[in-house]
């Protein structure tokens, strides 16, 4: 799925990475607990979260993720967007809550993908 499609499905605002929207991603995960993202994620390129601190960007960077979607209408501080921009990570913001946001993407073919078995 193209990241531009994710933005359309969630009626999301693009906060940075506009030039990367045509990139394709194949799986996603949703979590507000970064330790769980670090524990269980493998190869998921999109992170949906309601947390809006710098550690979200750092976690995404460590996990090689391409796109962060802030849910529940959260408005991340400027330094979070700047850090994502520097890391080449696309940031979207939607007013959707976590469950329907994940549901819409899943129903349209963006699956959960593999789980880290380490």
């Amino acid at each position: 799925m193209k990241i531009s499609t994710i933005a359309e499905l969630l009626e999301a605002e693009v906060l940075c990475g506009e030039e990367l929207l045509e990139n394709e991603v194949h799986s996603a995960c949703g979590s507000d607990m970064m330790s769980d993202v670090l524990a269980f994620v493998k190869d998921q390129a999109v992170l949906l979260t309601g947390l809006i601190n710098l550690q979200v960007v750092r976690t995404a960077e460590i996990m090689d993720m391409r796109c962060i979607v802030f849910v529940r209408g959260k408005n991340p501080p400027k330094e979070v967007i700047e850090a994502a921009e520097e890391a080449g990570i696309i940031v979207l913001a939607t007013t959707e809550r976590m469950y329907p946001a994940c549901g819409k993407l899943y129903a349209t073919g963006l699956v959960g993908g593999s789980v880290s078995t380490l």
Partner: protein
Amino acid sequence: MSEPVRFHFDVAGDNFASAGEASVKVKKLLRQLSMDPETIRRVSIAMYEGEINMVIHANGGTADVILYPDRIQIVLSDTGPGIKDVSLAMQEGYSTAKDNVRSLGFGAGMGLPNMKRYTDRMQIESEVGKGTTVTMEVFLPEAAR
């Protein structure tokens, strides 16, 4: 034999926002050295969790990453309060972190278990009131040695 490559970082303890910067730097350095991607992933996740722990619990510390021909060693050292009961701290879900840390996406008792999970060897030396040193090693796959 040449000396192994070594990276040293000071991890500031006063700023949660900067926690993890050293891990991201290590990840980039290992990439520049064309290390095996799965090894980079394991090293950077384990070190990131360790860095977060040092910032949450110990007011920062130091991080050293040493590249041996067959393995990568990460040594995280702090002069914090120490760990009273290491085996309890190793249990998934056990945490002494404060609520404000939880609201930042950490402190769910997954840090040390994650570090163990992503590394091949982990040793914790801790003395209450003195500090903690965590030494982790990730072995390189045969083909990458």
